[in-house]
């Protein structure tokens, strides 16, 4: 599946955005976004995580999020479960999950949260620009701007943005990178501060990549060779390290292409509306046909009537 997906993506890339109405000369969609070295992010070292969920609790406290009870899950599991939510939600911005690699049988705790992508799909998708990459690296959501269309949820390849399904006036909720509560005050994110195992490292993007590379180099037997997030979907602000025998896919971090997911939509969009040439051209052609037909009928003396067809 993964291989065919990737191959298929290559084909689509090759085919480019063969868009409807595209009569203009092929336009350059905007080039890949370069990550800013000053963007902050986090490095999640899954080999160090002990699954204590201190980060989850710290996140809930920091963002004043309600606790979620899973006691209602008796039907599904045969017993009430009261430990922890099982997926991200409007009340859970970060989540520790236990994953098992089918091949090696190895189990690993992994933290999930917004990846604060370099070229964020949610930002590209948002109709009003309510989601924006900030100069500090956080992808910030503006609830007052938002219309609640949920297209960001469709766009996000990591399924991060959550919607308040129970509220009359719902908003999108997701990890903020503690952008306003802590980053602006020069503090690291709440989850980083809370982690007792040193599994989360906060810092600037380039520094984090440096740290990750050093760790891999120092213990090649312990770590997988690649850093997840360095290139995936155009690069992310949150990186992952995995155990040698555990694939990232097994951790719920899919084997994504290096191109941002918004590449195709943006290039099609760009071509259809480039300087409004294609729509105006279509307009002109249709108008010419209309005028021609009317003139022809007038000359043939069948104005307002019909010719045989």
């Amino acid at each position, binding site marked *: 599946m993964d291989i065919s997906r990737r191959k298929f993506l290559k084909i689509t890339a090759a085919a480019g955005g063969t868009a*409807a109405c595209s009569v203009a000369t092929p336009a350059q969609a905007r080039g890949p976004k370069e990550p800013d070295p000053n963007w902050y992010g986090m490095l999640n070292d899954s080999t160090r995580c002990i699954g204590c969920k201190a980060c989850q609790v710290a996140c809930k406290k920091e963002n004043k999020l309600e606790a979620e009870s899973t006691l209602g899950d008796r039907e599904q599991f045969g017993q009430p479960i009261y430990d922890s939510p099982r997926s991200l939600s409007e009340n859970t911005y970060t989540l520790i999950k236990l994953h098992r690699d089918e091949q090696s049988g190895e189990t690993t705790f992994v933290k999930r949260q917004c990846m604060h992508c370099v070229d964020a799909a949610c930002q590209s998708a948002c109709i009003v620009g309510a989601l924006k990459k900030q100069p500090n690296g956080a992808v910030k959501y503006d609830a007052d701007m938002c219309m609640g269309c949920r297209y960001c949820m469709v766009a996000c390849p990591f399924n991060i943005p959550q*919607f308040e399904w129970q509220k009359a*006036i719902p908003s999108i909720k997701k990890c903020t990178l503690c952008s306003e509560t802590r980053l602006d005050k020069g503090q690291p994110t709440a989850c980083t501060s809370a982690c007792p195992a040193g599994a989360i490292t906060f810092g600037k993007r380039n520094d984090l990549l440096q740290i990750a590379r050093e760790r891999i180099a120092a213990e090649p037997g312990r770590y997988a060779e690649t850093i997840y997030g360095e290139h995936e979907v155009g690069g992310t602000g949150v990186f992952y390290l995995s155990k040698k025998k555990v694939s990232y896919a097994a951790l719920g971090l899919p084997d994504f292409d290096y191109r941002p997911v918004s590449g*195709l939509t943006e290039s099609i969009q760009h071509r259809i509306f480039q300087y409004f040439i294609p729509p105006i051209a279509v307009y002109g052609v249709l108008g010419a046909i209309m005028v021609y*037909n009317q003139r022809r009928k007038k000359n043939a003396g069948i104005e307002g009537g019909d010719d045989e067809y």
Partner: protein
Amino acid sequence: MSIKAAPLHQKFVTPNLWILLFFMGSGAVFAYFRFFHGFGSVTNLNPAYPFGVWIAFDVACGVALAAGGFTTAAIVEIFGRDKYHALVRPAILTAFIGYFLVGLAVFFDLGKYYNIWHALVYWNGTSVLFEVAWCVMLYLSVLAIENLPNVVEQFKGNVRLPGPLAALNGLADWLLHRLDWFCNKTMAFFVIAGVVLSFGHQSSLGTMMLIAPYKLHELWYTPLSPLLFLTSAVSVGIPMVVFEGTLAAKFFGRKPETELLSGIAKYIPLFLGTYLLLRVGDLAYRGVLASAFDGSLQGNAFLLEFALFAVPYFLLKRRKIRRNPTTLFLCSLSVILAVVLNRFNVFLIGMDMGPEWSYFPSVGEWAVTFAFVAFGVLLYKIAVNYLPILEKEH
């Protein structure tokens, strides 16, 4: 053009009216919960399926099924096939009703519906939705203008407002005369604008789900999607005119316009053939045809969709089938269902969010959707009854 359109002026309160009102009432009950108790109280939407039947049917299908308006306008007004002129007004009217309902449905589906005007002010050009929203707004305005002559023709020089409003009769009449002048001068501009906007809008709906390459099934994830959406919308334009024309004749007790409908139906195989050629070519080029036969839900949904497109294509090429009102109606219905299923496939069935998530529309979601359809039928009933939309039987 000796034949003139005229209001039906039939008895308005019929049993059918109560059926429509029942559907609208039940939809309104669920709508109350959606607006005051959140989506969770009505819908089965979940984090993996943020778009449900309200987007897939009310918006995606609604726009496609409004294609009767621009295709008929293009055939008659631009390509000059004036003998089908009688079909233009009902088609433009249904397109207007369709787009009006799309706008209304979006309002129901937006979490912060009171911010809907933000699309006008805060622009994000990289968003496909931005383009979709603008096309809806502009095309709805164009359709309103295209429907103006119906109102002008009915009331010009004949304004009789009730009671104290009678003082405004003169003003209203003056306004209608100005509008008449305006429409006569500018209608050609708006007719073409309507077609161009439809092109843009139909195709950009096809672009929408391309932002999710890892979620949308490979049978539908193709850079050709905008063109496929456009050509399939063009294909469903005339079938919608046939569908509505046949039903309107039945429900208003009029003689069916078989002559006219089977005449214009000769274009359907042309459009359908273009679409099918693009569709098959795209699948073959990308080498994904095999996944249509893997027995999965998506594969089967594709096969059904394809059959619904292909069967009427071959049938409608025969003159005999086109001239028979029943087979013509059934073939048109098949094309309509094909486009509906295609939009469902792209927006719901083809979206795979992983094994732990699933979505099937709740009773409440269906009720609201049916309410929209019923409201649309009611608006049509009102319009043809009091405005000159349908031409005298001939």
